[in-house]
């Protein structure tokens, strides 16, 4: 049974956010017998309630509270109040993630040493190595049921994948398969097998795809040590005179202010909300916000170098049938500066339904050049580019000077400018993607601009030295021993891989560390 904990219970670990990081950490701790309260800003929708309709699902799950944007990225012009596509619901963005689950490459933990200093980039080596994370990657892959690991067969290729594979063969790419996906190719761990419904981005109504909503959280609740409190929007972390955090102030479902006391606080609200919360928790003792003696909170915002390529063919494809992202080419993920940029990128199959295609193919575009593309919607194949982008101090989350949300908390402004390396990489990927589809007979291709960010990273980064970042190699704040960051905002750099497997691995590792430190009574 789910345990309801008293607001005054100061022995609990309070986690803010129930997504990939928070939901996983919550279950891990509960399994170890540690009492946990997860405060989640969104509502709880079980997977039967998900909607096979893009806009209706967006209204059900997406974070639509106001945010602002600035910088030279096109999102700031086309979607000024929607910098990111993130979920506000129990399960967080794992409700509508696509399931691509890749390990980082060794050099991606050592970008400063590997790429060298790059003008305009705030590169830094992670304080951990691939070798240190490997055992946790293995645990995470087993937990998520990642295909092509643990003897789990790959997913069958859908039409969109078959087009990609044919093109990859023509271009001589060697590593192209249906992906390492946290989607069941056969029933496993009480989860159904994928029925190729094609609405992975809208929440899997079969529960075939891993999500903290129906995997981690119910398991944690079953221990009696985990309570998930939905519709609870945290807006301030409190601390005592000794500089230790003591609880979290939040608005409950009726908008009333409450404070949940805590022995430990872990922030996992995704990379826009987590720094927003730390900055908003400023006090006379910490005037620049909590855990911010380095000044790095909110900085180094990364979103992966993305973009899409769609191709139109003279014969039908029906790319929207089946898994949204079960197809990958990994050949370009290596670091090979001879291509004109450092780092690498993955190419993954992608499909949008007609309503989202109209909104995102070329935002603001109109006239026949635009509409003749949509006229061939059922003859289209699509892929997504996901590559390593450069951390930049200027790319950052700040509190808006004037605009506040309904609880009086300043909204987040998201500033982003592409680094020249990002642009060079994107252009290379556009060329490869277009060439791939042309090789299979595409009559027209579309280099499509990045969507609002789905991978938000880096704004509370890990560092060896306290001066360079916000948290240490366990995600523990350099400044405050009982404050942790447990989501993608702790990434020192972004890698070329979709981030969730790494977020989950770090959360499992962090749970071990927290349990150790608690029993040693050092926090």
């Amino acid at each position, binding site marked *: 049974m789910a345990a309801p904990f008293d607001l005054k219970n100061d022995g609990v670990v309070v986690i803010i956010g129930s997504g990939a990081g928070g939901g996983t950490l919550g279950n891990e701790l509960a399994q170890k017998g540690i009492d946990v309260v997860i405060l989640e800003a969104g509502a709880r929708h079980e997977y039967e309630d998900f909607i*096979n*309709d893009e*806009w209706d699902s967006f209204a059900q799950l997406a974070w639509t509270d106001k945010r602002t944007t600035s910088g030279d990225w096109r999102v700031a012009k086309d979607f000024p109040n929607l910098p990111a596509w993130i979920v506000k619901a129990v399960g967080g963005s794992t409700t509508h993630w696509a399931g691509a689950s890749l390990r980082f490459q060794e050099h991606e933990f050592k970008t400063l040493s590997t790429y060298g200093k790059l003008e305009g980039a705030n590169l830094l080596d992670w304080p951990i190595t691939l070798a240190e994370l490997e055992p946790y990657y293995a645990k995470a892959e087993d937990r998520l049921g990642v295909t092509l690991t643990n003897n789990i067969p790959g997913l*069958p*290729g*859908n*039409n969109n994948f*078959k*087009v990609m594979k*044919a093109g990859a063969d023509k271009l001589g790419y060697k590593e192209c398969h249906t992906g390492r996906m946290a989607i069941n190719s056969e029933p496993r761990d009480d989860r159904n097998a*994928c*029925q*190729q*419904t*094609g*609405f992975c981005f809208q929440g899997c*109504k*079969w529960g075939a795809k891993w999500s903290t909503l129906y995997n981690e959280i119910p398991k944690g609740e079953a221990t009696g040590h985990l309570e998930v409190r939905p519709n609870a929007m945290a807006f301030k972390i409190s601390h005592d005179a000794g500089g230790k955090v003591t609880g979290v102030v939040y608005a409950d479902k009726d908008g009333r202010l409450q404070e949940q006391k805590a022995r430990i606080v872990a922030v996992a609200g995704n990379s826009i909300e987590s720094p927003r919360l730390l900055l908003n928790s400023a006090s006379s003792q910490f005037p620049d916000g909590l855990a911010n003696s380095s000044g790095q909170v909110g900085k180094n915002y990364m979103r992966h170098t993305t973009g899409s390529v769609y191709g139109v063919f003279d*014969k*039908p*494809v*029906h790319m*929207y*049938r*089946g898994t949204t992202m079960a197809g990958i080419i990994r050949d370009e993920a290596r670091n090979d500066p001879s291509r004109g940029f450092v780092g690498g990128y993955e190419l993954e199959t992608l499909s949008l*339904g*007609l*309503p989202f*295609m*109209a*909104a995102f193919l070329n935002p*603001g575009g*109109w*006239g*026949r050049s*635009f*509409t003749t593309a*949509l*006229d061939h*919607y*059922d*003859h289209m194949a699509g892929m997504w580019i996901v590559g390593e982008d450069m951390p930049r101090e200027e790319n950052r989350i700040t509190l808006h000077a004037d605009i506040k949300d309904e609880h009086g908390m300043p909204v987040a402004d998201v500033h982003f400018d592409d680094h020249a390396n990002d642009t060079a990489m994107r252009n290379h990927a556009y060329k490869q993607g277009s060439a791939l589809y042309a090789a*299979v007979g595409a009559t027209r291709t579309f280099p499509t601009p990045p969507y609002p960010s789905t991978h938000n990273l880096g704004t509370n980064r890990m560092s060896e030295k306290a001066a360079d970042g916000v948290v240490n190699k366990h995600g523990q704040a350099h400044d405050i021993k009982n404050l942790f960051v447990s989501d993608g905002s702790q990434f020192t750099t972004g890698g070329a891989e979709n981030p969730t497997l790494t977020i989950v691995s770090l959360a499992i590792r962090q749970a071990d560390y927290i349990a150790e430190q608690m029993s040693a009574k050092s926090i």
Partner: protein
Amino acid sequence: MVTIYERKPAHERKPGLSRRELLKRGGVGALLVISGSAVISPEHAWGLETSALKPETMATLIQMARDIYPHDQVPDKYYAIAVKAHDEQAGKDPAHKDLIEKGIAELDLKSGKDGYTGLGWEEQRVAVLREIEDTPFFQAVRGGLVVGLYNQKEVWPIFGYEGESYSKGGYMARGFDDIEWL
């Protein structure tokens, strides 16, 4: 109130709306006819009644919508449904009514003596639209269409998009991998 209504077959209709008479009252473009407070498509048996915007304005909006997102295989009816929200909003918000009425008046003015719908070729109309594409009026109309037009379930089959699939068991047995031409 704005309603899109299916028109009754000719023998059930009130007298006075014969095809010949409708055409006599003045066609908008070749297809749409204004009658009282309604825009009517005599060919395709539907009408759109306006309450806040002038019906002429609505008819021009429908043409404008088609010129912004031209799909020759999509009937006018769906463009009409896509822009009718402007009539609803104009009823609630005088500023919005002003934006649309003035925007259309301006569009007509820029288009010469027969107005926007008097321009026979799409290229001619698009040239006028290019002149105003940065105005709040144009952006309001275009922006509204992105969801208003493409989120109509009835138009999806025209583009070959099949929509909801869970209730049909997904595509496991319905062609997720049926591509044959590769």
